[in-house]
């Protein structure tokens, strides 16, 4: 969703975690000013009411705002047992029902290209029924002033959900993901890779509610911060009463390349059950001296060694990008940051240039 503003709305203290810390730390939330366009008289297709109860990562205020601003909502259903090959492209307000035993890939790609845009947003709600397999890929690579992305997923018994997030865009990115592992043995694997540089603001909220028995979640966030970037990550694993036998693990690795970076990490494990395990770990700092030395011993300067970490982010994003549009978005951002020669090399290396479609003609 990208709109020209006829008015503005202040979304105060959104993207909040279930349990908060001292306010003076300024880590609990983010306040955003967003445009508001009147939709009076528009015919609007709403999602089935089932989706209304899904918790989304950025919270109710953001959900209400996106619903009020989206020109339409889109409902997609993957039939029971179906293995859908073609990815589902989720746009501003999308609800996806993946029926029992079905498999689907869902792609959320923030708008990119053209002159810098104002505000863009995406609201995606997903229901994964019993035994369903859902692969979610999120790409934020654009040059919008601010992008809001709120995702909510409910996983039933034996459902498997994997989410790969790539937050590589400029400006302000606020992203929230809430996953409810409601069914017994439901599983989440979440990988979040990010890059924030210059004056970028990145605000991430991950909330995993483990309600079913013997559920598993494995969360790994890692990224690179440079320039005057400000980043906050709130990651909550909530082992709810009744989730016996469940295990949740969260790990973040932050690479800081500048003294002017602001990094806030707020990991929380909530536990209301005896027979569960929750783990958290974090490493925050610059590249370790022995790693730098190893890379220098192979011919890289300090600056090149640090850039290697950034290149690696784009390499991975390109490997994961399933559609020509997402590849174009990643590549455009890679060109901006790494230069056209390296970006071209990324494409060539992945053999993407041979693929058909618009990507083949992308200038790099």
């Amino acid at each position, binding site marked *: 969703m990208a709109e020209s503003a006829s008015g503005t709305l202040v979304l105060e203290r959104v993207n909040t975690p279930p349990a908060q810390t001292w306010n003076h730390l300024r880590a609990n939330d983010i306040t955003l000013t967003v445009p508001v366009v009147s939709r009076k008289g528009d015919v609007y297709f709403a999602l089935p009411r089932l989706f209304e109860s899904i918790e989304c990562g950025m919270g109710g205020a953001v959900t209400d705002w996106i619903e009020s601003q989206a020109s339409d909502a889109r409902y997609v259903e993957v039939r029971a047992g179906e293995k859908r090959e073609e990815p589902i492209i989720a746009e501003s307000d999308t609800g996806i029902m993946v029926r029992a035993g079905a498999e689907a890939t869902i792609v959320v790609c923030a708008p990119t290209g053209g002159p810098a845009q104002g505000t863009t947003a995406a609201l995606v709600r997903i229901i994964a029924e019993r035994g369903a397999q859902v692969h979610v890929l999120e790409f934020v690579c654009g040059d919008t002033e601010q992008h809001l992305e709120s995702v909510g997923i409910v996983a039933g018994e034996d459902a498997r959900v994997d989410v790969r997030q790539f937050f590589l865009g400029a400006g302000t990115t606020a992203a929230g993901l809430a996953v409810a592992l409601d069914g017994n043995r439901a599983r989440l694997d979440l990988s979040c890779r990010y890059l924030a540089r210059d004056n970028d603001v990145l605000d991430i909220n991950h909330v995993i509610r483990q309600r079913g028995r013997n559920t598993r979640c494995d969360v790994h966030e890692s990224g690179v911060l440079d320039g005057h970037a400000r980043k906050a990550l709130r990651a909550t694993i909530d082992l709810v009463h009744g989730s016996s036998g469940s295990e949740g693990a969260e790990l973040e690795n932050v690479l800081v390349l500048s003294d002017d970076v602001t990094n806030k990490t707020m990991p929380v494990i909530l536990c209301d059950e005896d027979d569960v395990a929750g783990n958290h770990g974090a490493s925050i700092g610059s590249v370790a001296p022995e790693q730098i030395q190893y890379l220098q011993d192979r*011919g*890289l300067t300090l600056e090149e060694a640090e850039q*290697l*970490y950034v290149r690696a982010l784009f390499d991975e994003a390109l490997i994961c990008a399933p559609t020509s549009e997402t590849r174009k978005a990643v590549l455009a951002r890679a060109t901006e940051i790494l230069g056209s020669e390296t970006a071209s*090399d990324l494409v060539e290396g992945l*053999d993407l240039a041979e693929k058909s479609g618009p990507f083949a003609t992308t200038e790099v």
Partner: protein
Amino acid sequence: MHDTLLRVSGINAGTEDKPILHDIDLAVGAGETHVLMGPNGAGKSTLGRVIMGDPAYQVNSGTIEFGGEDITDEAADKRSLAGIFLSYQAPVEVPGVPLYSYLRTITQKRPELKMTARKFRARVGEIADQLDMSGSFLTRELNVGFSGGEKKKIEMLQLLLLRPKLAILDETDSGLDVDALSVVSRGIEAYRADCGGALLVITHNTRILERLSVDRTHVMVQGRLVAEGPASLIDDIDAHGFEQFERANASGGDRA
């Protein structure tokens, strides 16, 4: 001796508070294979790192020349690009960097090795086959979660990819089982055959030397090179250990 490729002259070096190497003189000719042996803690690895330019060690006096150029004050990346390769005894884990991105970046840094990505992938595939490595390694993070043997194979992969003029192998054989040692030995042979580069093999185990034609053997004790000889010196060490050299060094020290 062939044209001298590496010449270490009168090197005294160590950490900030501890001298480790004393009056080291060493010359390695182009294409030659030298072996540096010695007991644990003798300073062998330190010499390798000093030649590579590790800033953790200070060179207090002496010079290092490579290819006729004085590189004593050059940074490690410059020495690497000049053609020196140090294979780590314990390769460093680098989370966040997939092996493919890393290999591609270090290869593209070398004008003589620049190639299209397609050729690069083919070349990496060939080497991986030579070393019995799975292609899936390429998408994994550099050295992260690899076994000791796999890490050494990755070192050999880089050796064969970068084709240096001089490879310093710092106890590449340590911690390897028989199969892994065989694969690594094949990698070293391939380097000698394909690249014709010189080798400085740091070891206190003779197994890795069985397939190599050694030109010179050096023995280091307590930071000093106390003996030098032909390949037969290795057999002597294998049979009698380092005690004779330690005794000789101790009596030399007493005399001093």
